[in-house]
């Protein structure tokens, strides 16, 4: 629960808002590099943090990130021509370099104007398949965060972006919320780790239903990637690796601040083994990025404006047993009529629920397409900007509670002229990780993620 004022502060991201000023103090993943594949390719319009920009790659392959509207008469540079180391406005032909320098003013030649004024431009970096920009005050850029996958070549990294019609905090809170995983995502678990589960009094058979999630050629209706343990545990299949070995939907939550923000553990009982516990550690890098247990990549939630956001997954491309890259996994199972990876299809439409399958107990949530669809459906159902005055948090929401406090504390710090939290100065982000493991009950969860340790986020104000 938040006050109305806190909710507004948390959700509004424009340049003159408190949170907008905070978010502009971090490097922001703003666009996909594959949308600017080669020198002098068409420019793209980018909406991020409530502002519009144009991104382009010049003749030398350099990226430019400028205010979208030409500083002459305000025509969109996204309509412009990218040529000869610059982008030219169609309206009157003003031409700009990647740093915003005005190269030509055909309707005002021989003027010194272009030597004195620039089109606003912003620092931009290429990393992990994404274009990252710094939109904060010049000279305040923090160190650029390089993650383990940041320097992978383009063919070894996959980026998948889904545009959602709701405020970014609804999606961000979902990305770090562990206690919903064994409930909302039951249909996904039924494919990857089939078997009976319960949600309160509801008994779910847990047979695979959302079969589009299974790899092609492995659409075994009994589940994929599993080891059969008939005779050992009553015929239950267990996914290779950890799977989801728990019916415990009330995990214990433990949170620690870190140099990059915080990480937390969701600790669950293990079915039939009181000497063990199932630990999922999620790491949150302020303000956009979560490293989710069981994933090798990360999920980033970036506000486009107050009422839409991009949910971006970055993941190293896995390889099959023969070493061949397995691309396209991030969109697997999603109906192409509701979403696609191409720019014009990235805005998600929530598919209809299969109420018949729900009623028959074959599906829990009724949404095909896996976790991303299930998450988006509930997050968008909260409305464009959720009114958090009305909610009833419970102690299992501790990570969400901590996320809000950390961001609101950063607002206060920036208002006081101080840097926000979690910039990670001097921290080696390449060591950062999440974890998913079944361990002896006495094991410290922090030992599963040793690279996350370091000098914590400083006390605030």
């Amino acid at each position, binding site marked *: 629960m938040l006050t109305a004022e806190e909710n507004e502060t948390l959700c509004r991201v424009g340049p003159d808002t408190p949170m907008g000023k905070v978010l502009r103090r971090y490097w922001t993943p703003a666009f996909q590099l594959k949308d600017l594949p080669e020198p002098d390719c068409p420019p793209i319009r980018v909406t991020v943090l409530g502002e519009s920009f144009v991104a382009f790659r010049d003749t030398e392959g350099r990226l430019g990130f400028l205010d979208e509207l030409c500083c002459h008469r305000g025509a969109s540079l996204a309509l412009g021509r990218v040529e000869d180391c610059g982008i030219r406005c169609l309206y009157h032909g003003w031409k700009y370099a990647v740093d915003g320098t005005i190269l030509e003013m055909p309707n005002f030649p021989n003027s010194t104007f272009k030597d004195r004024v620039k089109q606003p431009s912003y620092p931009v970096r290429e990393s992990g398949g994404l274009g990252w920009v710094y939109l904060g005050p010049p000279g305040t850029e923090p160190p650029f965060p390089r993650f383990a996958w940041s320097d992978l070549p383009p063919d070894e990294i996959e980026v998948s972006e889904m545009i959602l019609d709701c405020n970014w905090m609804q999606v961000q809170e979902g990305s770090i919320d562990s206690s919903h995983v064994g409930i909302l995502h039951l249909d996904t678990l039924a494919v990857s780790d089939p078997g009976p589960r319960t949600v309160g009094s509801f008994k779910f058979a847990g047979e695979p239903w959302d079969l589009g999630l299974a790899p092609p050629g492995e659409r075994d209706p009994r589940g994929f990637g599993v080891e059969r343990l008939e005779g050992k545990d009553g015929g239950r299949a267990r996914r290779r690796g950890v799977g989801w070995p728990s019916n415990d939907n009330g995990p214990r939550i433990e949170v*620690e601040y870190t140099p990059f923000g915080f990480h937390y553990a969701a600790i669950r*009982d293990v079915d039939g083994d009181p000497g063990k516990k199932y630990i999922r550690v999620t790491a949150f890098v302020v303000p956009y990025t979560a490293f989710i247990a069981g994933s090798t990549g990360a999920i980033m939630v970036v506000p486009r404006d107050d009422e839409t956001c991009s949910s971006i997954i970055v993941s190293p491309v896995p390889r099959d047993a023969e070493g061949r890259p397995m691309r396209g996994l991030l969109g697997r199972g999603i109906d192409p009529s509701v979403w696609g990876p191409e720019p014009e299809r990235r805005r998600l439409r929530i598919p209809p629920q299969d109420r018949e399958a729900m009623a028959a107990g074959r599906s829990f949530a009724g949404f095909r397409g896996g976790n991303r669809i299930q998450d988006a459906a509930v997050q968008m159902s909260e409305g464009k900007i959720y009114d958090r005055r009305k909610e009833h948090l*419970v*102690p299992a929401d501790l990570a969400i*509670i901590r996320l809000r406090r950390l961001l609101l504390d950063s607002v206060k710090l920036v208002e006081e002229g101080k840097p926000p939290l979690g910039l990670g100065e001097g921290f080696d982000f390449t060591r950062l990780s999440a974890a998913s493991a079944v361990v002896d009950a006495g094991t410290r969860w922090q030992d599963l993620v040793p690279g996350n340790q370091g000098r914590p986020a400083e*006390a605030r104000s």
Partner: protein
Amino acid sequence: MSERRTSVTTGAAAPGDGSRPRSRGDGAPSPLRLAVVIDEACARVWEAWGQAATVVGLRVSPAVYEAVALARPKEVQRGYPLMLLGLELVVDAAVGTYEPAVVCA
């Protein structure tokens, strides 16, 4: 399923009460920060559970109580108890605004 909620770590690196709101420089009171109140309350609930206590309520300052009531007019109209973190609020003038306390059975 075994009994859970046996321990809590709110962060060895937690920044303590450094962020607790202070008055503004102009003498006006700072707006209430429910985000801080709830974070502090949640930490206390987990701590109590870690000591095997049964938590049945939260004692909060009048300012917090009023803020929650203001935010939830429908619940007040219907005569529901005011709750935070699933626990009934007990107004207590002796409790600091950012120092909620658990009520244990």
